[in-house]
């Protein structure tokens, strides 16, 4: 049901050859993805730094037919999931109550004060992790199903169904704003 598409080559995507230039071009996108995943700006910066360090180690061995951004997102995602797991373990050990969502800042400051945007971000935060990452990679970062599937280690079909479920949840939760 989903269309398979040839992955765009890095050259076609205009990705720079050197890691330094790549860092300048993509550091902000990397940071935002980390922030959306872990919800804390210090942690997000730390993850971004660690991700580029890991990228540096593989930069010259990376698959040239794949965009480096896919590698960047995949590395960031693994680091973020690692951190979220550790937080969950620590919360359990310290018997802290599970907090809703991941963000530690007020959604209002995050989303620019508009009620709908704040409500939208709150709803996105509460999505199951697997749905949240797919939604953000598609609608905020603009990746194609095929790329998202590679980054999250699934299939395009599964990406499509997670995305459909995520959007359906958001639509139901935000129904009063959307009508």
């Amino acid at each position, binding site marked *: *049901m*989903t*269309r398979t598409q040839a992955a765009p080559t890095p050259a076609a995507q205009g990705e720079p050859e050197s890691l330094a230039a790549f*860092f300048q071009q993509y*550091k*902000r996108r990397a*940071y*935002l993805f980390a*922030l*959306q995943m872990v919800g*804390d*700006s*210090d*942690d*997000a*910066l*730390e993850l*971004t*730094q660690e991700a*580029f*360090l890991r990228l*540096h180690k593989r930069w010259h061995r990376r698959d040239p037919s794949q965009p480096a951004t896919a590698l960047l997102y995949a590395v960031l995602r693994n680091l973020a999931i690692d*951190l979220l797991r*550790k937080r969950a373990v620590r919360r359990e050990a310290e018997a802290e109550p599970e907090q809703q969502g991941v963000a*530690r*800042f007020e959604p209002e*400051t*995050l*989303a*620019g004060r508009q009620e*709908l*945007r704040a409500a*939208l*971000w709150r709803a*996105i935060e509460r999505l199951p992790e697997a749905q949240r990452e797919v*939604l*953000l990679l*598609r*609608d*905020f970062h*603009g990746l*194609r*199903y095929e790329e998202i599937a590679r980054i999250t280690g699934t299939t*395009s079909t599964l990406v*499509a169904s997670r*995305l*459909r479920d995520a*959007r*359906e949840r*958001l*639509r139901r939760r*935000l129904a009063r704003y*959307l*009508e």
Partner: protein
Amino acid sequence: MKPDRHEQIRSLLSAYLDEELTQADSQRVRLHLEDCAECREQLAQLERLKQLTGELVFPDPPEQEWEEVERRLSVRITRGVGWMLVCGGAVGLLIYSLVMALLHWRPPTVREILGGIVLVGALLLFFSVLRQRLLELPHDRYRRVKQ
């Protein structure tokens, strides 16, 4: 419109919106939408959500934070290369000296003995730093994590 067909189309709307459907499915959705105001409305809502998600605004870190990240990155990258050179060179030199000593045994000169001491010392330092780094790794990860 039969309800099952209606539901089938709804399940395709999300991928339709992303232009990720096959041509045949896409055509099927388009035809259905022409006749079905309900599904058109649902598609419009999904479209709105998608657009809003793309327009969410997140706080950027201040510029000096980026400079700090760049500084730390370059320090760690340079240090990595430095340690690799020191370690590789020292191990190579040690092996070479041992092989030469075994092949042509003669009493070592004072210079060779001193050189050997420095070399072994450098390797010891390297492994102790490495051990410490490995032990510190878990703490390092939480260094900036708020409790």
